C-alpha cells in the first residue's frame, strides 16, 4: 500500500513537473532564469523517473484520479488543443487540416457527451513495467536533450540572426512534450490517452514549424494532417469500445482479446501514423527542418515511441490474427524500404531519420507478431534505439552548428578536426549496427523470433530482415568511414571543440555512457522490466532469457578495449609517417596530386550511393503503395476477422 501511494505521488510528479516548468518557461524573463529553469526542470524530471523505477519498477499499480473535476479539465484542455490547431489551420489556409481538426473535435465531443460512461474510470491511471521502461526513456533522454538544446539554440540563433528568437516558447514545447508523453504511458483511461496523444501531435506540429519558414510550415502541416488522421482512428476506436462494451479502459480492452480486434486495428492505424511507418514516413523526414534538438526528441524518447508503445500494447490482442500479420508486414516492409533508401541518401540527418523509420519498423513488426519473444525484443529495442539515435542527433547537431553542412561528403577529417565529437559519433553509429551493441542483438533475436513462426510468413519476414540488414551495414559503414578518414592531419582550426558548451558535453557524454550501460546491462534490463512484463501479459517467459550474455559482454569489452589499447601502444612505438601512395605519383595529405607540367590537382573522393540500384523515389513509391494496401487490409481484417 505504501508503494502504491509512493508510485501515485511519483506519477503525479512526472505528469505535473515538466508541465509546470514548461508554463514557467513561457513567462520567465531573461536568459539566466531560462537556463536555470531548464537545468532544474531536467534534473527534477530525471530524478522523478529514476525514483519511479526504484519505487514501483517491477510491479503493477492502478490509480483512480483523486482530483475532482479532472474530467472537466481534460474536456476543456482537449477543446483548447483543437482550438489552437484550428487557429493555425485557418491562419495558414489549410482546408484539409481544418476539416480533420473539425472531424476530430466532432468525434471527441460525440464521445464525451454521448458515449462516455457517466462515472469516471475507476482505474484512470496505471504504471507497469512497460510504463516504467518508457518513463525511463522519456525521463532521462528527454531532459538531457532539453539541456543540450540550451547550447544548441544559442549557436543556432547566432548563426541565423534573422530568425525571431522564440526560445522560451521552444523550451516550453520541449517540456510540455515530456508531460504529454508521460501522460500516454501512464493513462489507463483511453479518453485521457487520446488527449495526451493529441497533445504530442500539437507539440510536434509547433516544434517542426518553429522557424516559420515556408518549408517548415508546410512540413509541420504534413505532420499535423497525418497524425490527425491517426487521432481520428483513435477516437473511432474509443467510441466503438464505449458503445459496444461500455468501457474506456486500456486494461479492460486488452482483456477482451479477440473481441476487441476492430478497435485494436484502429489504434494500430493511429500508432502507425505516429511511428512514421510507410506510407506515413514523410512527416518524420520533413521534421528535419526544425532545429536538431527537435529531431533528437521526436526520434528517440517522444512522439514515434508513443506509436510503437501503442502497437506493443496491442500485441496480445492482434497476435496471430490477420490484423497482426498485416501490422507485421507493414513494419517489416518499412524496415526493408527505409534501409534500402538510405543507401542512396547523402544527407546525414536524413540517414538518421530513415534509420529511425527502419528501426521502428522492426519494433512494429515485433508488435504485429505479438509472441512473447517478439514483444520482449520490441521492448528492449525501444531502449537501445532511443539512446543511440538521440546521441547521434546531438552529435550531428554539434557538427552542423560548426560546419553548416548536412552532406555526408563534408564529414571527412572529422576525426582530426573534432576528435572527441568524432569518437562520440562513432559510439552512436556503433550502437546502431555493430555487434554486440543492442540494436544488433535485437535484430538477432528478431530473426529467431521470426523463424519460430511455424508458417512461411516467418520465412518471408526473415528474408526481408536479411536484405535490410545488409543495407544497414552499408549505409552506416559509409558514414563511419567518412568520419574516420584522415585527410589533413594538421588541420589548422583544431580549437573548434573548445566552442562546445558544457551543456552539450554533459548531454552527449551521458548519452554515450548510457549507450554502453544499456548494452552491458541488458541482462538486468531484461530480468527487471522486460521479462516480468512478458510474464504478466502472457504467463510464459519470452524464452530469450537463456541468452549467452558471457559472450556478449566479452565481445563488448574487446570492442572497447582492443582498438584503444592498440592505438595507444602503437602511438608510443616507433613508426615513420609517410605520404599516401597514388600509383607512383606524388601526393600530399591535402589530396593534391602532382600532375603533368608541374600542375597540382586536387582529388575528391566520394562515397558510392548506388542510386542506379536503389533509387529512393521508386522504392518509396512502391513501398508506399504496398504498405498502404496492407493498412487497408489491416482495417478490413479488423472488421471481418472472427477469432
Amino acid at each position: 500500500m505504501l508503494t502504491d501511494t509512493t508510485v501515485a505521488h511519483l506519477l503525479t510528479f512526472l505528469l505535473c513537473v515538466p508541465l509546470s516548468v514548461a508554463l514557467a518557461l513561457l513567462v520567465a524573463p531573461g536568459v539566466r532564469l531560462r537556463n536555470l529553469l531548464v537545468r532544474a526542470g531536467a534534473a527534477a524530471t530525471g530524478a522523478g523517473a529514476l525514483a519511479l523505477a526504484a519505487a514501483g519498477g517491477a510491479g503493477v499499480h492502478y490509480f483512480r484520479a483523486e482530483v475532482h473535476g479532472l474530467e472537466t479539465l481534460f474536456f476543456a484542455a482537449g477543446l483548447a488543443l483543437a482550438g489552437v490547431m484550428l487557429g493555425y489551420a485557418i491562419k495558414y489556409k489549410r482546408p484539409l487540416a481544418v476539416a480533420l481538426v473539425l472531424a476530430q473535435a466532432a468525434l471527441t465531443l460525440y464521445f464525451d457527451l454521448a458515449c462516455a460512461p457517466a462515472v469516471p474510470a475507476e482505474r484512470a491511471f496505471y504504471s507497469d513495467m512497460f510504463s516504467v521502461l518508457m518513463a525511463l526513456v522519456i525521463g532521462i533522454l528527454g531532459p538531457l536533450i532539453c539541456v543540450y538544446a540550451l547550447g544548441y539554440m544559442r549557436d543556432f540563433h547566432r548563426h541565423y540572426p534573422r530568425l525571431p528568437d522564440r526560445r522560451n516558447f521552444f523550451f516550453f514545447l520541449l517540456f510540455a512534450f515530456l508531460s504529454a508523453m508521460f501522460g500516454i504511458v501512464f493513462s489507463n483511461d483511453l479518453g485521457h490517452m487520446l488527449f495526451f496523444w493529441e497533445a504530442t501531435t500539437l507539440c510536434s506540429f509547433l516544434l517542426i514549424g518553429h522557424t516559420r519558414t515556408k518549408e517548415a510550415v508546410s512540413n509541420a502541416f504534413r505532420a499535423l494532417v497525418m497524425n490527425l488522421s491517426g487521432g481520428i482512428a483513435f477516437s473511432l476506436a474509443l467510441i466503438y469500445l464505449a458503445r459496444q462494451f461500455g468501457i474506456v479502459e486500456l486494461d479492460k480492452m486488452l482483456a477482451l482479446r479477440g473481441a476487441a480486434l476492430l478497435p485494436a486495428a484502429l489504434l494500430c492505424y493511429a500508432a502507425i501514423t505516429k511511428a512514421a511507418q510507410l506510407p506515413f514516413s514523410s512527416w518524420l523526414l520533413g521534421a528535419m527542418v526544425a532545429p536538431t534538438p527537435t529531431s533528437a526528441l521526436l526520434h528517440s524518447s517522444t512522439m514515434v515511441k508513443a506509436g510503437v508503445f501503442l502497437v506493443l500494447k496491442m500485441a496480445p490482442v492482434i497476435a496471430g490474427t490477420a490484423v497482426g500479420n498485416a501490422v507485421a508486414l507493414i513494419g517489416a516492409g518499412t524496415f526493408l524500404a527505409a534501409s534500402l533508401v538510405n543507401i542512396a541518401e547523402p544527407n546525414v540527418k536524413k540517414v538518421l531519420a530513415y534509420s529511425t523509420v527502419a528501426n521502428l519498423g522492426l519494433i512494429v513488426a515485433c508488435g504485429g507478431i505479438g509472441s512473447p519473444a517478439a514483444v520482449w525484443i520490441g521492448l528492449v529495442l525501444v531502449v537501445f534505439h532511443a539512446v543511440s539515435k538521440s546521441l547521434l542527433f546531438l552529435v550531428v547537431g554539434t557538427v552542423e552548428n560548426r560546419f553548416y553542412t548536412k552532406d555526408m561528403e563534408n564529414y571527412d577529417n572529422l576525426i582530426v578536426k573534432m576528435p572527441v565529437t568524432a569518437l562520440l559519433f562513432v559510439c552512436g553509429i556503433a550502437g546502431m549496427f555493430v555487434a554486440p551493441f543492442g540494436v544488433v542483438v535485437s535484430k538477432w533475436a528478431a530473426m529467431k523470433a521470426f523463424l519460430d513462426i511455424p508458417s512461411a510468413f516467418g520465412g518471408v519476414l526473415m528474408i526481408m530482415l536479411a536484405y535490410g540488414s545488409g543495407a544497414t551495414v552499408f549505409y552506416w559503414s559509409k558514414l563511419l568511414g567518412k568520419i574516420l578518414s584522415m585527410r589533413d592531419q594538421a588541420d589548422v582550426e583544431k580549437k573548434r571543440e573548445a566552442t562546445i558548451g558544457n551543456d552539450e558535453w554533459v548531454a552527449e557524454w551521458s548519452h554515450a555512457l548510457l549507450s554502453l550501460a544499456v548494452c552491458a546491462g541488458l541482462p538486468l534490463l531484461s530480468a527487471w522490466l522486460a521479462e516480468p512484463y512478458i510474464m504478466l501479459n502472457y504467463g510464459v517467459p519470452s524464452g530469450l532469457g537463456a541468452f549467452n550474455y558471457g559472450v556478449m559482454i566479452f565481445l563488448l569489452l574487446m570492442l572497447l578495449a582492443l582498438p584503444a589499447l592498440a592505438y595507444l601502444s602503437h602511438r608510443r612505438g616507433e613508426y615513420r609517417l609517410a605520404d599516401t601512395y597514388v600509383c607512383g605519383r606524388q601526393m600530399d595529405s591535402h589530396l593534391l596530386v602532382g600532375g603533368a607540367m608541374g600542375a597540382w590537382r586536387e582529388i575528391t573522393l566520394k562515397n558510392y550511393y548506388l542510386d542506379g540500384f536503389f533509387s529512393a523515389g521508386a522504392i518509396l513509391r512502391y513501398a508506399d503503395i504496398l504498405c498502404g494496401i496492407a493498412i487497408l487490409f489491416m482495417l478490413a481484417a479488423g472488421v471481418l476477422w472472427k477469432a
Partner: protein
Amino acid sequence: MESLIPALTYLLLAPLAGGLLAGVDRIVSARMQRRVGPPLLQPFYDVAKLFSKGDVEVNGLQYPLALCHLVFMALAGALFFAGGDLLLVIFVFTVAALFLVAAAFSSASPYSFVGAERELIIILAAEPALLIAAAAIYKVAGSLSFLAVAASGTALITRLPGVFLCLVYVLTMKLRKSPFDLSYSHHAHQEIVKGITTDLGGRSLAFIELTHWYENIFLMGLVYLFFAFSLPLGLAAVALTYFLEVLADNTNARVRWQLALSSTWGITLLLAGGNLLALYALGAK
C-alpha cells in the same frame, strides 16, 4: 569446456592450414597459367618478411584497425568452431570486415578509398545470403551451432541445395577471387588491384594476410557444415569447392562490381530465399 578445444585448435592451426591453402592455391593457379609457381611455403615466407619490416604508415589509425581486423576475424572463426550461434558469428564476422573497411577509409589514397567502398559492396552483397543460409540451417537442423549440427548427423546438403549453391557463389567474393573486380581482387588487369591494402605495409599488411587465412578456414568450415554427416565427403566437398573457386578465378576476365551486387542479390533471393520458403512447403519443423 568441450567447445574450448575446437576453438583453440582453430586459433592455433587455422593460420597454418590457411597458409598452406594459400600455397596450394598459388601452385594450382600457376599450373593453370602454365607456370611452375612458388614453393608451397611461399606465403609463410612472405608474411615472415612483412613482419621483419620497419613500420612506415600514413596515419596512426591503420595499424590498430588492421590488428582489430585480425583479432575479430579470429574470434568469429573461433566462435563458429566452438559451436557458437551462427547468426552471432556472422555479425562478428561483419564487425571484423568493418575494421578493414575503416582502416582503408582512414587513408587518403584514392585506391584505398575505392577499395573500402568495394569491400562494402562485398558486405552488402554477401550479408543477406549468409543470414538466410543461417536461417535455413536453423530451420532444418533446429540449431545454429556448428558442433550441434555436425553431431546431429543432419545431411544439410540434401535439404539445402539452393542455399549451398548460393553460398558457393558468395564465397567467390569472400575468398577474394575473380571474376568480380572488388577490393582485394589481385589480377593485374583489374581496376584497383588490391586497392584496399594500398597504404598498408609491414606488420599491418602481415595482419591482413593472416586474417585472410583465418577467414578462408572459417569459410571452408561453413562449406563443410553442409556435408558434416560424413568426414571424407565433407573434406572432398571443401577441396572441390576451393578448386572451383580457383578455376573461376583463372578462367574469367574482369566483371564489373555492379554485376557482383545485382547478381548476388538475385541469386540469393532465388536460390537461398526460394530454398528457405520451400522448406515450409515441404513441412519443416
